[in-house]
């Protein structure tokens, strides 16, 4: 078992090194002639207007919150799904009840207008 995770760890390390190699090579080979006009921020060919770190729209936060609830639910559903074959039918129905409670949460969010994009 620990050999498998050693493999994954090495894979990560080499997976980070492999994209870096062409970037380092490009830094050695490519020209570097910076000037202020080239390095200015792109805005379709005109001068930038206003701050570039624009205000964060609150609706993104609401969607992230709903995502969090359902993500934690799905994490709890993984062990349920894995052991379904060995367990009797009423355990399946208990899992369905759990899903039903969270669907009630989704319906509440829907009716309260949390899933609208205003």
């Amino acid at each position, binding site marked *: 078992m620990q050999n498998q995770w050693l*493999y*994954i760890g090495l894979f990560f390390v080499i997976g980070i090194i492999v*994209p870096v190699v062409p*970037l380092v090579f490009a830094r050695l080979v490519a020209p570097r002639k910076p000037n202020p006009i080239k390095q200015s921020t792109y805005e379709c060919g005109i001068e930038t207007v206003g701050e570039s770190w*624009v205000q964060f729209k609150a609706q993104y936060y609401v969607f992230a919150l709903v995502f969090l609830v359902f993500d934690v639910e799905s994490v709890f559903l*993984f062990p349920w*799904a894995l052991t*379904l074959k060995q367990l009797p039918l009423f355990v*399946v129905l208990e899992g369905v009840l759990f*899903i039903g409670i969270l669907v009630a949460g989704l319906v509440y969010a829907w009716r309260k207008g949390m899933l609208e994009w205003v």
Partner: protein
Amino acid sequence: MTFWNNPINFIGYWLNSILTGWHLPAAIASVLLYVIGIIVLILFAMTLDIGLVWVERKVVARFQDRLGPNRIGPFGLIQPIADIIKMVIKEDITPDGADKIIYNIAPVLAATSVIVLWAILPLASTIYGVDLNVGLLFIVAAGALGTLAIIMAGWSSNNKYALLGAFRMVSNMISYEIPMVIILLIPTILANTMSVRGITQAQSGMWFAILSPLALLIFLISAIAELGRSPFDLNEAESEIVAGFHIEYTGMKFGWFYAGELLHAFTFGGFIAILFFGGYGGFFGLEKLAALAWLNIPFVQALVFIAKAMFGYWVIMWIKYSVPRIRIDHMLAFNWKFLVPLSLVVLVNTAILNKILIVLPNWLYVLGMFASNIVIGYVTVEILRSYGRNQRKAEKLPDSHAQTQEQTV
């Protein structure tokens, strides 16, 4: 254990015997062998990626009724190599005000999150990186790294278009992760394991695409949204926000975003093949016949797997070049109001029916699962049609009043 049966272990034992013959301690020899195997696998993935650039450009050209690259090499086959040389020698322009560290890490992370998925992708029954028993969870976890890379790229670019593109893309990707994770539970239930090889072996009787076609459909849609390809490609809406989160990237950094996206699409094609179409095996039990025993050779299985993954990639490309882009509010509404409830219904249906019908003979089980999916699909379409009918009626009502008033006058 011959070379044809088990190529990787055969070569591994041979090299191990050489290395221990040179008096290296066994632990260092095995780590060195791991590193060599990983480098070979990653180089294979990168070569496939280069081929995918050619496939993508030729296919998009044919969809748009033109020829595509055909100057460089026969049929334009050397075109991707020319692209790579061009991207490496281009100047690397860093915008002023950009957050240097995060700006440089983002493309590397985007490429890493895709390369790491190849560790668990089984090309054949004995050609794979590692057979984790939590393979599906690993897929979801590695995919989340890609989301992180996008927000890093958008935030550090000091460009409001990049930031807007990154915001929309991240809200898109996290939203569509929910149906994807819920649908990943369905092969887990049907195969009783989360390991990717185990799921492939459990499909030697019947493909999961036939046991649960709705799950295949929802996974396909969620996968396309996770990849950020059309019709969900708001991050690089070329006509709206000019390349979105990777506006300020030039040269090879942009190259890693682009190549990473193509390899990610092919890898997800491979996962669709594994989870629903039987992966490297899956010939409905035909491979047990003596006449078709050559189907069990690992290299033939690898070819079968790549063919199935190419088919999945073809479907993803087909959808990309046929339909227009969807607006962000439509996209999020489609996910939270349609896909999530539908995927929960399909999960509950699969869990209950799998428990009840497993005692019946096999053909009745398959028929029952397939029929239940058709019933759910039909009910969903009817609900949508009646919803559409009610909306049209509500829109018509003020107009009909106006018409009758005009007639009386």
